[in-house]
């Protein structure tokens, strides 16, 4: 009798420990609805960070919070592809792959001085300021697959079909070319545009390029910023507008759904200007700011103010009518906001 009772108790305990097996809808992943602000962090000492911006709150240091280690020094770029997020840290020379929804780390790989990234198929293409090669990384594990000679130090990358348009910006020196990379066949063409191309907008078969212009710190060789268009069918380029003063520069080209372009009229402490095709280089400020970076997501402008570059920054959010709709505290030196 006692043995039977013991067996019943054990049997009952085993079943009591089993959870009811039900089928439920997958939960929304914690960061899937957040926009992510990439904060470079202080140069040299310290780390960049990721600020996850929700409708009514912001999670700072989200990468470190979820993974237990800092993202690295100078968080330069971020790219969301399907359920994955890729982050490039320029001084730490790392590419991190995370789950976009949970920000949990999957893999990291070393790439010297990465700048921008693009994904075509199963390959992640990474530009850099160390050598004239585009690095090709396997998106599934981070293995280095190839290096493509693009004939210059590379920055921004855009994709058209299976072709990459890579800005050859010269790093801290000067360059005025684009590299057009056929990812299927591996061929590379170059095309001349203005000095230091830094950002792109693709509109059908046309590519618009904002060229920063060169800042000659030590002499009188500075050049003005300019806007170019490239016909992607025949790879011809034409200049659309140019600053009249060698101190006029531009960065962060974006475009809204109406076809109006927006960019910063400098690289530090800059204001937002507006431009339409056919107009001259804009000289009036659309949004007065002291901005370091500009992003546009769904016709909403994100103006990144790095303050004194040694404190948390601020992102001001505007609609494309120029109305301020939000202001967010971020990490040190906010650079870019991505979806």
């Amino acid at each position, binding site marked *: 009798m006692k043995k039977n009772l013991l067996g019943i108790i054990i049997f009952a305990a085993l079943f009591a420990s089993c959870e009811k097996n039900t089928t439920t809808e997958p939960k929304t992943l914690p960061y899937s609805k957040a926009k992510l602000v990439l904060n470079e962090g202080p140069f040299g*000492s*310290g780390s960049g960070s990721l600020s996850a911006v929700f409708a009514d709150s912001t999670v700072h240091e989200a990468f470190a919070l979820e993974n237990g280690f800092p993202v690295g020094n100078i968080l330069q770029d971020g790219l969301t592809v399907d359920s994955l997020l890729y982050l490039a840290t320029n*001084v730490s020379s790392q590419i991190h792959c995370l789950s976009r929804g949970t920000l949990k780390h999957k893999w990291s790989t070393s790439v010297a001085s990465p700048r921008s990234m693009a994904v075509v198929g199963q390959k992640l293409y990474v530009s850099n300021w160390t050598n004239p090669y585009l690095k090709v990384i396997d998106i599934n594990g981070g293995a280095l697959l190839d290096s493509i000679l693009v004939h210059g130090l590379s920055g921004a990358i855009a994709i058209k079909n299976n072709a990459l348009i890579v800005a050859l910006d010269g790093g801290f020196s000067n360059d005025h070319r684009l590299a057009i990379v056929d990812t299927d066949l591996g061929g590379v063409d170059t095309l001349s545009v203005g000095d230091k191309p830094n950002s792109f907008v693709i509109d059908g078969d046309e590519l618009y390029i904002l060229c920063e212009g060169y800042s000659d*710190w030590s002499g009188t060789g500075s050049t003005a910023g300019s806007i170019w268009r490239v016909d992607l069918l025949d790879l011809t380029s034409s200049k659309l507008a140019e600053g009249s003063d060698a101190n006029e520069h531009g960065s962060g080209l974006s475009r809204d759904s109406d076809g109006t372009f927006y960019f910063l009229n*400098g690289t530090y*402490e800059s204001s937002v200007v507006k431009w339409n095709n056919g107009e001259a280089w804009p000289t009036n400020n659309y949004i007065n700011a002291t901005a370091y970076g500009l992003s546009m997501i769904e016709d909403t402008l994100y103006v990144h103010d790095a303050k*004194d570059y040694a404190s*948390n920054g601020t992102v001001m959010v505007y609609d494309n009518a120029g109305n301020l709709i939000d202001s967010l505290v971020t990490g040190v030196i906010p650079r870019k906001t991505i979806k």
Partner: protein
Amino acid sequence: MKKYALILAVKMAWIPFVLSAQSADTLWTANVLGRNFSIPTAFSASDSLAQTTQSAGEYLVRDPRIAIRQYVPGSVSTVSLGGANSEQTRILWGGIDISSGASGVLDLSLVPAAMISQSSIVGGVNSSSFDVSGIGSSILLENAADGKDQFYSAFSFSSIENTGVSVANGGSFGSTSYSSKIQVNRNLNNYSYQMGPYSGTMEGASNSALNFLQRFQGDLGTYTWTTDLWYTESEKLSRGSIITPVNISYLDDKSLRIKLGLKSKSGSDFQLYSGNESQSYTDTNAALSVLDTNLYMQWTGYYGYTDSLNKLTVRANYYTAGGSSRDAKMLVPKLGYERLSGNWKVKLNTTVFRSTPLLSITTTRNLQLLGTKGYLSLGNSFRLPTLNEMYWQPGGNPELVPERGIGAKWLVQKTKGAYQLMFTTDQFLIDHLIQWVPTVNGNWSPINYKSVYTGSGTARISRVNKFSSLSWAYTLNTSRVLNSENPGDPSIGKSLIYRPLSQSAFLYEQKLKAMVFQMRAYQIGLRHTLRDNSASGILPLERWVDVSLSASPWKGVRSMLTLHNVTNASRAQFQYYPLPGRYISIQLSINSIP
């Protein structure tokens, strides 16, 4: 990263060269009040052995009033105390300000600790009495020749492969006294680290330095003449932080300083100083490849006259800065007057900067109340912009005006039997603080940006008897940004960065039968590295303990075994730059004077 942070080539150096101090076996608590207004550091007899092979940057950690900043042992070390920053903390050699006229700082890793004495630290407003922009504090270096025949060779080795060798001798021939010292330090910094999730072995952070000091001194009729020569040569590798790949940057530095002096018994004092420094810096960190050279020269002529009541000084300083990033020169004449007697002692210093006269006045009153002695000093001071700040290419701002400060210092001290209690506080209001900020064209440029308050208070209790010594000192630091050129400046109302909120040093030394046991316990409080004091930039409080045993196994031979950082505490003075954990060092010296 769009632009690299401005690279400031920094460089940075007193003690009476008293070998007899090495024979002392009790804690020095020499109570030096008077014109120097220095407050003694609690150095021990065991420390005197460490002093023979260490740099001033390593040695001054013992004094909790001083904040040393370095990346790894032997790297560029800058110092600040009394709430002042590194440019406001001046380094003087024999009364001549040798802080770099280009960068405003002196690398204390290149200064032999033997040049530091207990009287070297002058905190607060009184430092303005020494040739300078003494807006915050001064460190006085000295190299003496007392004519006694003396010799030592000293060696140090550590388990992290940091070594030091020094040879010194002194004596006299005829009526001339001499002293010379050569010191070589080589730090491989081969240590393991554990910092949060990061662990590894430090690499790419080695450095080496050679120092040669030579002094001659003699009598010429009613005059005493001196010649001093100080040569320094160093190489430093820097790997970046532990969250970056090892990209070595390299700093090569050579300097030659010569000082000639002629002092009469009637009170006249002439000095001529020449300092020449050359640096080359190569930075291959990531995308940045920077080659920078810095050529810096300083000429100073000094005349002083002292009688029983007054002291008058005239100085002419001529600075040049050349190299790849600036080409500039500056002449700075200075006139000083000091009233040496009376209830209120007054010091005046005046200079002319870009045709604008500047005057600093400090007044001091000795106090005595209920058996305590002390003094109160009030004054104003200024720090001239450096040649780098005014003429760096690109971005230098020739329109900068001097930083200006008003300060107060109060000290009281009570001695009863073997016990001594000391309390001192320094307060400053500083206006036109210079800070580098970005401009619209991408250049960074310095401007007179902020008004700040800094305050520092130190309490120390010590007890010395025949067999043991005990000292505990605690410093509290406060700072606030009061105002800024930019009303939206996020630092307004916040603490200045890299100021420890507190510092503490505890010393216990016990004379045993055949050896001396010493324990030093340190605490450095929380430090902010971001100007808005946000949490992501905090360096937390650190505590660590060193213990040592020293002995003199044979006559003329001294040895010391030290276990550093006994608890293997995690330490850093910059984020992601770990300092060594637990390690052992051995020091050995052979002296002609036991």
